[in-house]
């Protein structure tokens, strides 16, 4: 790690410390923002769960707590020290940044075993990537709100950095942890395993890729099984937690508004259609995995990023914290930005949605002069902007691949018909 990185991390920690301790009311404001805290990540609910857990009542009995049991065990060891809690969140963000720096330093984004971009010199140095992640207001707000998505993000980034760092087993285990914490990271398992494989040096590479994948899948499932077993023990030998955590992700019993598209849809829906649309919505997330992984076989890291972006947009309880990790990872692909077509439009849309969202939520909930449609309209705009960004970066990446293949076509218009 060089000086610039250290500087950025120090700055980011300072910003968080100032926001935590100089503005004591800020965390309390942010923890109640629906854009930041969802029913499955909210710090308030975590506190409730911790209270029940400490008093020997099953936190999964009521309908309030939907987070993983290991979080309970972890936070119980911290006692109820407010400062320790805050430091843990800051540490998690720093760890995420360190993983990102490692990924950036490896240069995998522009040149790997299977593919080397002609634009690889345009990549950002690692400190800029760290800055994009750490100083992004979305990341900062998520950290200050102490939403537990922070930990998921950390483990996801850790998994990628381990995959890049030639430690496939560690990557699989980190991925198991991420899936354990919030289910949807399970979708990035295939590209991450491929990334692990691609990054291995040729002398260590197992002869058969299928064997490698099988071993890693078993490692992943084994680690996941281990975590489940541990949780089973922690919650006094009950599988109740499965229904209250993953069941909530899958079945959407809590319809608190968030930036996603699900809550409004399922409020409006007749009950008889609920199961059908639950399946449709979940399958919708699943169908991208195969296609994206196969199409981006030469750049599995980008497949991971794209899938993270898609889940951040379409999962059942998304928050801006999901998007912050997507933005952070996207900055690794600085070299394809000039090929994007709607940068300005997308960023303006994102900015508009980020401002109008709270404004319309205020009109709906506090002023009483608006209604739910106001906020929902903005979540649609937000999702539109995300989708545009995903599609546009995907276009830019494919264009980059194509220009590398056919250098004579550089800078020319191309149309697929």
């Amino acid at each position, binding site marked *: 790690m060089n000086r610039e990185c250290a500087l950025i991390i120090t700055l980011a920690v300072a910003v968080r410390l100032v926001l935590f301790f100089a503005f004591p009311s800020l965390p309390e404001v942010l923890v109640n923002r629906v854009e930041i805290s969802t029913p499955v990540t909210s710090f308030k609910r975590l506190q409730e769960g911790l209270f029940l857990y400490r008093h020997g009542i099953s936190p999964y009995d009521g309908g309030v707590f939907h987070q993983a049991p290991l979080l309970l065990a972890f936070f119980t060891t911290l006692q109820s020290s407010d400062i320790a809690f805050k430091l843990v969140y800051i540490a998690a963000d720093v760890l995420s940044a360190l993983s990102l720096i490692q990924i950036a330093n490896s240069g995998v984004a522009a040149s790997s075993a299977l593919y080397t971009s002609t634009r690889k010199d345009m990549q950002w140095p690692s400190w800029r990537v760290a800055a994009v992640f750490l100083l992004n207001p979305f990341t900062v707000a998520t950290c200050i709100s102490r939403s537990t998505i922070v930990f998921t993000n950390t483990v996801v980034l850790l998994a990628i950095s381990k995959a890049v760092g030639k430690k496939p087993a560690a990557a699989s285990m980190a991925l198991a942890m991420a899936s354990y914490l919030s289910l949807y990271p399970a979708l990035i398992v295939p590209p991450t395993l491929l990334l692990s494989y691609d990054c291995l040096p040729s002398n260590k590479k197992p002869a058969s890729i299928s064997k490698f994948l099988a071993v890693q899948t078993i490692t992943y499932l084994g680690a996941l099984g281990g975590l489940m077993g541990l949780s089973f023990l922690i919650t006094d030998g009950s599988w109740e937690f499965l229904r209250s955590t993953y069941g909530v992700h899958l079945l959407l019993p809590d319809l608190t508004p968030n930036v996603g598209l699900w809550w409004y849809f399922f409020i409006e829906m007749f009950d008889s259609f609920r199961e059908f649309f639950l399946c449709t919505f979940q399958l919708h997330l699943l169908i991208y995995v195969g296609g994206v992984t196969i199409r981006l076989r030469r750049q599995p890291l980008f497949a991971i990023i794209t899938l993270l972006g898609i889940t951040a947009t379409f999962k059942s309880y998304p928050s801006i914290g999901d998007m912050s990790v997507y933005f952070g990872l996207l900055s690794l692909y600085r070299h394809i930005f*000039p090929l994007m*077509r*709607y940068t*300005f*439009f997308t960023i*303006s849309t994102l*900015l*508009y949605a980020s*401002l*109008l969202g709270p*404004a*319309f939520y*205020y*009109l709906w909930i*506090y*002023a*009483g*002069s608006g209604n739910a449609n106001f906020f929902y309209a903005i979540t649609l705009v937000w999702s539109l902007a995300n989708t545009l960004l995903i*599609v546009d970066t*995907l*276009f830019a990446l*494919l*264009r980059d691949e*194509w220009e590398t293949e056919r250098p004579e*076509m550089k*800078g*020319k*218009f*191309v*149309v*697929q*018909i």
Partner: protein
Amino acid sequence: MGALTQLLRRRKFPYRIVSVLSVFVGVYWFLQLPTNEHSRGTYMSENALMPGQVHTYFGGTESMIFRAYHHEVEALENATSTRRVEMLGKIMKDNGLEVGRQKYTYEASGEVYKGENVYSILQAPRGDATEAIVLCAGWRNAEGELNKAGVALTLSLGRYLKRWSLWSKDIIFLITEDSRAGPQAWVDAYHDMQSTSVEPLPVKSGVIQGAVAIDYPHKNFRAYHLMYDGINGQLPNLDLINSLIKIADNQMHVDVKLQEMWDHTDSYKDRLRTMARGMVNQALGHSSGAHSSFIPYHIDAITIQMTGENGWYNEVTIGRTLESICRSLNNLLEHFHQSFFFYLLMHPHRFVSIGTYLPSAMLIAINFTITAIGLWLESGQPKDKKEKDKNPKPEITESEKAALDTSVESSNKTTEIATPSNDEPLIVERQLLLPVTIVVAIHALGFLPLYLFNNLDKAALTPVFYAFTVFSSLLPPVISLALRPLAPTAQTFTLIKSFSLLLLGLFLSTLATINFSLSFVIGLLSVPFTFTRFLKAGIFERILFWGVIQVLSPMMALELVAKYWGLPVGDILMEAAFGWKVWGMWTQVVVFGVWWPAWIAAQVGVWSPLSGVQRD
């Protein structure tokens, strides 16, 4: 997206024309609002209110009691606050009401605002204390005058309404120390949101459905003056206003005035003036009467002010009006929701709703966004390309045009064709770091005045204000000079302008949904930011731009507001600090966080030659 791609491809987006057009259409739209074709007559939406359809009985006997209370109030004029509250509480208690008292202290600009509120609750004979109506009178009204008749009337209504058995909602009679801090302290405490310097309430009732404040210093009057602006420009439901106007017109035959328009002839000019005055109040976002503090809590509230001395109406008229409006509110089945929350009133019987007026503010806000997009495209334009554009030549072949509409990643079944095009790069690489840093830094700097003006002492406000005005005028040339070592290009300044306008458009269109008037006013005053041509401008043009922008600065606006109210600037700043501390007013955040940074950025553009930038 096909159209957008084409625009991006051709980079000949006529943004200036579109911008000018949107401003003109926006202003024209606004000026059309008062006409009969575009405004609407008011009407009752919530039929349950049935305004003015009950017989009212507040009459001769009550008038005698009112006079007795009036004497009591006069006797208390010079009494201490404790003694006053004690006496008023005793009268309420003697009338069989449950009484509560509350002390509060606020501090703003080094001044301390102290007082004590007293209130009583009439428990509804037919209700279960889940809903309530508030009748409120400040001991002193918004102008600081003793609200003699108002307090006496509240007391006598407490006695009179208690006798009826038809109430299904509790009625709270509230007498606050003043009409600014007192109601805020009370309503905050009612919802358990009070700050530590405010006492909690000893007795409470249910959800407040409506509040009517009485501003009635002299016994006889000629007309009602209806005040309805809430804090931060929020408005009560139009049904409440309509109910009062209907009762006043049809039952009491009293004129209702709005926005201090004492002689309203219902002409276009008068309508426009009423609307404009309403918008100024809304834009300032301050409290205009005791009712204003209720509105942020989603309680629809109005103040009725009796105007015109030695008029021919007396307490019986207003007493019956209030009785009637209480009966109407008592009829409410659910919270006010039927009618409009966003409207501009131009006459007691005419209004425009949000759907009609919003486009005007949005068009003005969009003009900034359009220019921002145009400048962004311009900043990516290669230099030689610009020259080529001057000699017209076929830009895009037909096949290209048709083909551009198809998205590239849509399918993989097709062949890829590449049409040969100009060999030059599509877009010049943009150096974003410097412009983004400058724009963000200027916005961050906006917190400085915000903090200063909200926390300084009274005596320091005026000198600091003038010092800040000088600082704001000097800052842009200093920024431009400071950029010199970084060798900024024309692109840097184009991008600074683009980002600053993008943010301005963004904030203003968001603001237009919350506080239309503030957004419209700031938007109008910021229009010159769009049209400053700083790179190609000659020296005289530059001086002209500098002058225009200098005149339309936030600081000048503050001076103007001071003129409008006939107060020194220091008092306005005190009022603003008081609003920030007590009412939770957000106007200064918008001024220093949105408007001021955009203004500084515009001036940086005007001063750009100082940075040694190459002129095109």
